[in-house]
């Protein structure tokens, strides 16, 4: 069964802290994505990666960075957390080929920045 896991379901951090959100998929997918979900705004793409050590900016990359050292793992980094980064963060993955374009999501991390 396809599985995407995220390191924490809930996280509380203070303004200015460096925050790491980890995502692991066991499906050997090439593509991985980080979204944030806010009420009324849907899912907005922060960064994505289509291969190890590759990364591309999404629609709202400011204040975030990412790391993909291994195929199965995609990390989202908040260099200096701010209160406007309080949100639900969702990781997703999908394969590069095979016809189906669906994304498989992890359970999400609800981050609160105080």
């Amino acid at each position, binding site marked *: 069964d396809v599985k995407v896991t995220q390191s924490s379901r809930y996280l509380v951090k203070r303004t200015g802290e460096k925050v790491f959100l980890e995502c692991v998929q066991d499906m050997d997918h090439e593509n991985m994505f980080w979204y944030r979900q806010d009420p009324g705004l849907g899912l907005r793409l922060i960064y994505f990666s289509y291969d190890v050590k590759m990364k591309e900016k999404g*629609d709202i990359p400011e204040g975030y960075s990412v790391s993909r050292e291994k195929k199965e793992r995609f990390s989202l980094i908040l260099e200096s957390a701010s209160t406007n980064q309080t949100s639900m963060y969702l990781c997703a993955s999908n394969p590069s080929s095979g016809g189906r374009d669906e*994304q498989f999501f992890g359970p*999400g991390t609800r981050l609160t920045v105080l």
Partner: protein
Amino acid sequence: GQQVMQIPQYQHVQEGEDFTTYCNSSTTLSNIQWYKQRPGGHPVFLIQLVKSGEVKKQKRLTFQFGEAKKNSSLHITATQTTDVGTYFCAGRGVGFQKLVFGTGTRLLVSP
């Protein structure tokens, strides 16, 4: 850039009533996907539409892709309490552009 709008933002129906959510893209799409997110859960893929004018059914759910490949709809016949959740469309622009999610429609079904 590409934008995908969804209406309504929220709908509350009585069990047994029908429900429709509409999705509109600012640009022509190569495909459109629909996801369902249960309360407290994560988005789960429902279906993908690729062809102009395509209609697909999954039990009580009917999905349509517009002729111009810029809009789509999801219709649920005779809603049940298990249909509660937020429904998202997601469109991919022509030329392998990234997937853009709509703002979602939150459905509440009262027994």
